[in-house]
């Protein structure tokens, strides 16, 4: 049992949980994730470790409510327990002094970018952050991201805050302005990290490819065990099949077959909807 120490709603449908998980906190590094099972009969869902405190033995998870399991999680209160939690899974992000690094976070994806941006900053990088959401009220972790960034930009789809448009749009403008070698379309940026919905990562990768800017993305495929045992999480990278849980979750964005990733994310759409609708119905009855 893993106790929820505190809970905070960061934006409508996006909740942060601080959870007691001593062993995971001790080993966690930026880029890694856990798999949780909320209750008996529940499914196993992966969530990125958004922060960790080794001394206190606490990890933070930021979850976007999209279906039944994340709704169940959102329904838990401070003091409640998560039945199962295992991790840290996946490989940690590569952290070293690359020079100038752009960190792009979209929606709930800002949460997993934060610890990576922080670690990159600590490693001596010049950190440029671009974060975005649908609208101002949905933007999360703004102050936290600002505090680890040397340059900081916000986008919203509706223009209610910062640049109007997608993160990929702002990114393209930034890169265009920072060309160091106009002929070869080279910029003064050394690396890009992008985490968010698959479509967002795909468009970021498309933009950076033009500038030959190495781009790391963190893939959110469907998972079961998270230890390489089932193959549910398989994706195609550079024409080869990889398991996100053990080979990733981070991959070279220019090598990833995003169409396949997005197609595979939809495998259970119909079932998940039925499941979620039944659950909502159940909740309504309880009220």
């Amino acid at each position, binding site marked *: 049992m893993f106790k929820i120490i505190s809970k905070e709603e960061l934006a409508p449908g996006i909740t942060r949980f601080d959870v007691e998980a001593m062993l995971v906190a001790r080993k966690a590094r930026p880029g890694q994730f856990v798999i949780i099972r909320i209750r008996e009969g529940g499914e196993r869902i992966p969530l990125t470790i958004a922060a960790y405190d080794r001394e206190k033995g606490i990890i933070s998870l930021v979850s976007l409510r999209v279906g039944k399991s994340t709704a169940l999680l959102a329904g838990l209160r401070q003091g409640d327990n998560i039945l199962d939690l295992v991790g840290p899974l996946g490989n940690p992000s590569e952290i070293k002094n690359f020079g100038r690094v752009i960190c792009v976070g979209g929606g709930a994806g800002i949460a997993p970018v934060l610890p990576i941006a922080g670690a990159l900053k600590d490693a001596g990088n010049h950190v440029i952050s671009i974060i975005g959401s649908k609208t101002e009220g949905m933007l999360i972790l703004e102050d936290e991201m600002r505090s680890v960034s040397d340059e900081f930009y916000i986008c919203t789809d509706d223009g209610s805050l910062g640049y109007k448009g997608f993160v990929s749009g702002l990114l393209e403008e930034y890169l265009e302005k920072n060309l160091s070698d106009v002929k070869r379309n080279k910029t003064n940026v050394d690396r890009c990290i992008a985490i968010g919905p698959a479509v967002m990562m795909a468009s970021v990768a498309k933009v950076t490819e033009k500038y030959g800017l190495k781009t790391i993305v963190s893939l959110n495929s469907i998972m079961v065990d998270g230890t390489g*045992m089932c193959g549910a999480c398989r994706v195609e990278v550079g024409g080869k099949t990889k398991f996100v849980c053990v080979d990733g979750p981070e991959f070279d964005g220019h090598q990833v077959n995003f169409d396949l990733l997005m197609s595979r994310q939809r*495998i259970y759409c119909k079932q998940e909807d039925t499941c979620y609708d039944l659950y909502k119905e159940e909740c309504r009855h309880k009220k």
Partner: protein
Amino acid sequence: MVAKSESNKKRTKKVRIPRTSMPEQDPGARKKNFEEVATGYTQEDALLEASRCIQCKNPTCISGCPVEIDIKSFIKLITEKKFEEALEKIREKNTLPAVCGRVCPQEDQCEKECILGIRYEPVAIGRLERYVADRELKRLADQGKECAYSEVTRKCTKEKVAIVGSGPAGLTCAAELSKKGYRVTIFEALHKAGGVLVYGIPEFRLPKDIVQKEIDYLKSMDVNISVNAVIGKTLTVEDLINDGFKAIFIATGAGLPHFMGIPGENLNGVYSANEYLTRSNLMKAYKFPECDTPIIRGKNVAVVGGGNVAMDSARTALRLGADHVYLIYRRGEAEMPARNEEIKHAREEGIDFKLLNNPVEIMGRDGWVDKIRLIKMKLGEPDQSGRRRPVPVSGSEYDIDVDVVIMAIGQGPNPLLTSRIKGLKLNSRGYIDADPETGKTSLKGVFAGGDIVTGAATVILAMGAGRKAAKHIDQYIRTGKW
């Protein structure tokens, strides 16, 4: 002289009793439910079957059992209706009799060596083993006890030993060490202990509450089970050593799913058997939406492979509502590695065997599987394994309509842990190089056994390895000698 011929006559009469058949659910009914197919002997069945054993002076059956259960004696005890003592006799060598009685490939092990098998049918040793184990479970359940067998509630006080993986190898090693008084902790990556017994083998072949009772029994023996602990991630082997564990037994199984490497394998609707079975068994997807994990319920399902894993997948697909399940295997039925009983059950339930066929491509529409292309095979010269090698018949390709494909073509060693232990010797296929007699690896204090050493094998072989390792772990801790 007279007495002898008398007894000879009795013998002849005995062996002429036909092997007592196993009561089973009707195929038409059972293919629609997840309840156990074989319902188990009644007392009359067990007594009759036990009476067929001629109590050989030189019981060859025992050498056929990898853990050398004293089969002759336990069967004798059954004939005397001393069921509890019969169970005790089995438990001297085998801590999971209710499991082995159900899933051992008896026809290749104990029953293969039974003398009666030469002229008649062998004694149904496995079914008898299951009977005595089930009888005890039922007796305790009737008394309102949760546990398998009488609880022991012991307090262990000796050195600490860590076991990685809670499959049959890990569970057996834990039980043996606990009996010797060691403080044992089993670390398991999943949220539930049992290994393949809980995530792989389906409910209709091995009810999960039986496995659970065995595990509860271990807990009553003061074995600590720590689930949600991936060794190599949550804790490393160095952590375990620093934590005061004097020896480590690695029993992580062969859990890495193989794919064929043909086009279309990443289409929606293509599963590894591991994923398909894990969803259905461990996550209870067959109860969706009551349980939250979904699974695709295909109408036309193709399962590729010929082992127990393939049979389990095919029969699960049927129970999940498929109209037609094809079993695609590149050799003939005689070459199938699955247990005879599973093959028989699968046929009875209407699985469509496509023998001497091999997939060459999976085709899709809008990202979803809709066809599988097969090529016909013929048997050529024997290969290294002695089985005749299947060769494709050129130009014989044809397509069948399917919406789910399950790959059950074997498993390999998962490198998650093994690649993280410095100095641990692996063989060329990635399995741990361990002494088959002692379980010792290239690292002092680290033992290994089960599928992670042998490659995918059987429950009882994994248990045997766990037992042997326990003996040598004890010796190592007592003497300090490697």
